[in-house]
């Protein structure tokens, strides 16, 4: 098992700290989900881990060897990011086939046959210019590059943006198939959490440039609960726990609880339900209220 590690990463743009002493460890052979709000630092973190953006401070290694300008490390990584339909000089007049040819030139394990299969599956006209593609088609092209690269560590940054529901399901299916066949590591950054959650083994939650959680998804969800009932009963039951997004409706109250370990019982008088990743993340974004 290899480890892509980022230690004490700081990234600043002028006086603004986009990443604040972030440490992350990616074990190979797993599917990671990276979630966070807009501007949380997801893309910056991914681009630094893959040496596409220099860190202001910190160390990024793959199996102990630096990733920065290291041919051996870089040959194991593919970071397929959003292609811009516009360049500084005007529309991006590169054709899809030219872009894919460039990807083929650089990715050592590029699978041309698989790429052709995916082009057909997503119904992409490779003679079209990138500037003429819809948002969904641009996403499809980034998915094609990511999957056909056959890189050991494949990173996709919001790959399903703009894709219709059929294409999204196709993508999830492709990732699972590819993972089952090859054991490749995938890191998927997405806002469509509910759909993608079933793929993730591990989850990284980033907020305002800091990693909030980085753990096994099942373990995280095993200690997340939605507790509802009479206000006094809920307050009593959740005393001492980390509470997110409390909502009151008349005499009733609903809170999301994230405990340090699985809770056997919250006592009587309250209803306890499991929480989905999306609802947990939403609750976290709404804010924490710690009970005394």
């Amino acid at each position, binding site marked *: 098992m290899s480890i892509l590690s980022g230690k004490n990463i700081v990234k600043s743009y002028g006086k603004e700290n986009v990443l604040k002493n972030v440490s992350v460890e990616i074990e190979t052979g797993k599917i990671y989900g990276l979630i966070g709000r807009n501007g949380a630092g997801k893309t910056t973190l991914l681009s630094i881990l893959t040496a*596409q953006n220099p860190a202001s401070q910190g160390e990024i290694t793959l199996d102990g060897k630096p990733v920065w*300008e290291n041919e051996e490390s870089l040959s194991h990584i593919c970071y397929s*990011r959003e292609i*811009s339909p516009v360049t*500084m*000089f005007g529309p991006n007049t590169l054709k899809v086939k030219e872009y894919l040819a460039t990807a083929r*030139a650089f990715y050592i394990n590029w699978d041309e046959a698989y790429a052709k299969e995916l082009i057909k599956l997503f119904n992409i006209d490779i003679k079209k210019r990138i500037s003429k593609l819809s948002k969904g088609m641009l996403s499809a092209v980034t998915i094609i590059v990511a999957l056909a690269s056959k890189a050991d560590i494949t990173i996709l940054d919001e790959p399903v943006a703009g894709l219709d529901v059929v294409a999204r399901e196709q993508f999830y299916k492709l990732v699972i198939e590819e993972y089952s066949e090859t054991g490749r590591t995938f890191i998927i950054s997405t806002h469509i959490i509910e759909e993608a959650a079933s793929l993730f083994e591990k989850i990284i939650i980033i907020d305002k440039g800091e990693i909030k959680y980085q753990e096994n998804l099942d373990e995280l969800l095993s200690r997340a609960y939605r507790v509802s009932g009479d206000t006094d009963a809920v307050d009593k039951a959740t005393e001492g726990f980390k509470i997110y997004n409390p909502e009151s409706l008349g005499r009733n109250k609903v809170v999301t609880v994230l405990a340090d370990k699985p809770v056997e019982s919250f006592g009587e008088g309250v209803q306890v339900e499991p929480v989905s990743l999306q609802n947990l993340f939403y609750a976290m974004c709404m804010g924490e209220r710690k009970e005394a």
Partner: protein
Amino acid sequence: MGELSKRAAKYYFVQGTKQALFVLAFLAMITVLNCLVFVDGSVMDSLMDNIGSSIRYGSYMIVLCNFMFSVYGPNWYDSIALSLGCRRKDIFIGEMIKQVMFVLSDFIVLIALATVAKQEYIIVLIGFVVLGLVMGPLGLIVGHKIKRIGRIVVLVTIMVGAFFSAMLSNIIAMRTEAFITEGCPVTGVVIGFIIVAAVLYTLFEFWAYNLNKKSMVV
């Protein structure tokens, strides 16, 4: 040389060749148009006369286009290569390969034309090639520096660069031709020019290397 380095070198070699073919195709089109529009006598005679003009235009384009294609690099083609896992060091070397390939390909074709049409442009062409090579890293520096400034500044910079390249090219051409026709010794001038160009080239490449070291995907 590692596998990734070889792939990067091959990619940029192909890019340089494509750019050279683009410019040569454009030149061929202009030559044919000139022949057809300004026919004086037979088409063949017109063609031979127009080859001289084409060689001159081609010389200007070596300088101008190498500058412009290099300006595009940091914000477009190099950025794509970087996003696909290419190392910055390989991009830097690749850009050198691309520029040399572009300049030399055009030079070889133009020299061949000059020989066929019995035009005495060899020294002038060498001057343009040297200038064209110097404009390459200068274009990279401009491309790096104007990344954050915006499109209007880009366009203005390219226009200024184009005007500067054309003006410098014309001065060199006229001065060199004057030396040739007046029978003045050109050796000292040519050697001096090459030395200055080599120094500038080295400085510009060093500057471009330092800018490239910290580049990020656009």
